[in-house]
């Protein structure tokens, strides 16, 4: 089976500082996996390289066998990679519905329609409602997005990504800034979404309950390099990981 995503010796340096160095791993289709590591380990940079926001200095990123390096985000997203951001990246003045609907329209190739009202695009609207429903946000669909609670804004961000029907979904700290209760709910929700949308899912997370609770594979980054890769159990037992990141008393 070809991997969904394959990183091959990926490097990135800012000035003299190497942020990711020689990172290689493969993500198999249908997998749900986590990337962990201390702050500054290069996790978000890695995402940025995958989605084309940053150019790789070296190495290759293969998505379903096709090299993505050098392609702009626009084309990468079109190939089926979705992403939600660490700080919710939404359209604050639009309604919750329109936030999702614009993504649905984009996926359906209907953004160059100049004449009909957005509400008249039935398919996009229905799809948007379905996504809001699965996120539990349907009740707030007519509110402007900036009015949403912090956690809901992050869900909305995920919803925008989902609307693009990605094969691979990248989530950057989906529970950051949430209360323990919200985290619990979000964890369940993400697992739910992974199943119902048939996704390959990679997430960055600091919340260990989430990492060890739902990930099938965990990858540890440290100072830009891949320190370890394995099942949650393997990682939990890995000496290097424990000293470098999880701490002795873990």
């Amino acid at each position, binding site marked *: 089976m070809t991997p969904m995503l394959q990183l091959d010796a990926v490097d990135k340096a800012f000035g003299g500082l190497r942020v990711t160095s020689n990172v290689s791993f493969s993500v198999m289709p249908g997998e749900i996996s986590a990337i962990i590591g201390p702050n500054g380990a290069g996790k978000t940079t890695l995402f940025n390289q995958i989605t084309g926001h940053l150019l790789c200095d070296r190495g290759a990123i293969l998505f379903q066998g096709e090299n993505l390096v050098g392609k702009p985000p626009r084309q990468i*997203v079109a190939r089926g990679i979705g992403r939600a951001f660490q700080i919710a990246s939404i*359209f604050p003045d639009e309604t919750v519905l329109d936030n999702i609907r*614009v993504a649905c329209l984009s996926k359906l190739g209907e953004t160059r329609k100049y004449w009909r009202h*957005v509400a008249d695009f039935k398919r996009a609207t229905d799809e948007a409602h379905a996504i809001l429903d699965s996120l539990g946000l349907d009740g707030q669909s007519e509110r402007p997005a900036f009015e949403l609670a912090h956690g809901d804004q992050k869900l909305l961000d995920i919803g925008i990504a989902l609307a693009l029907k990605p094969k691979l979904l990248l989530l950057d700290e989906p529970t950051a800034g949430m209360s323990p209760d919200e985290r619990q709910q979000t964890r369940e929700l993400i697992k739910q979404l992974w199943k119902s949308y048939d996704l390959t899912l990679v997430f960055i997370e600091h919340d260990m309950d989430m990492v060890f609770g739902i990930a099938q594979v965990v990858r540890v980054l440290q100072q830009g390099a891949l320190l370890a890769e394995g099942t949650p159990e393997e990682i939990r037992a890995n000496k290097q990981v424990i000293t470098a990141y999880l701490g002795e008393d873990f």
Partner: protein
Amino acid sequence: MTNLATRNLKAASLWAFIVLIFVLVPVLSTSSYQVNLACHVLIWSLFAVSFNMLWGVTGMLSLGQALYYGLGAYSVGLMVDHLGRQWYLPAMGLGVLAAAALALLLGLLVIRVGGVYFTMLTLAFAQLGWQITFKWYDFTGGDDGIQGIIPPGILESGTVYYYFVLAVVMLSIWVLKRMAFSPFGLVLRCVQQNPDRVRFLGRRVRRNQLRVYVISSLFSALAGSLMAGVDGSIHTDMLFWTTSGEVILMSVLGGINQFFGPFVGATVIILIEDLVGARTEYWSLIIGIIIMVIVLVFPKGVVGEAMRAKSLLTRTGAGR
């Protein structure tokens, strides 16, 4: 579906009301001056609404839309002057096309940079256009402008021309309104709020900015070409940067984030300019103070403030 139907009905009745008001102007007015004034209001409204597609909707602050407004006017003026009155309507079409072509060309240059650089670049190119029009007096008439631009046939009558303007303006604003609430318009609003996210929806930000720049310029040129026939004369002032500034003022006064804001803004500004100008030679002091008050106290504009007041009222009402 009912929601949709109500929306359509509401929108349609609002339209009918606005159109009715302007249809009645020549009937109710006591002098042709009021018709003339209403004509100015309509044309500036179109100019301001098309400008606001660029600024209010997409967040691109151009200080050079006067270039296209002037281009529209001069296309009509020059062709009527050189070729005759029967060229009036073709010249309008030609001016609009020329503006679209120029906007495409300049757009490729100025859209490369964002924010205030975009503003300054549009200003610089518009001033260049003004300087050329001013200087090339053999062709453009320079500071003397062009006079005697009389519309052909039945349009020569002031009232008929007024209805012509009304029809063109209302049709154009209707088209722009459809556009603003279409998927294209939604993408434009998204471009303003979060361009990076738009890229990650798989859409090209600059391509969309270029599209709206061309569309806005095209309608600005249409407004300019209509203006040529109102007074029968045009002038380089139409290309000067203060003309571009005036539409910003109209947009702000009406309310940037309201589609009809600039329409109301244009109406109010033209009436204020007229009233103040007619009463005092110190109009510039008074207008300056008025602008200051608008900017500092009513940043949401007339329509925006009215909506805020309305929502405050309904909220207190519901609280009781």
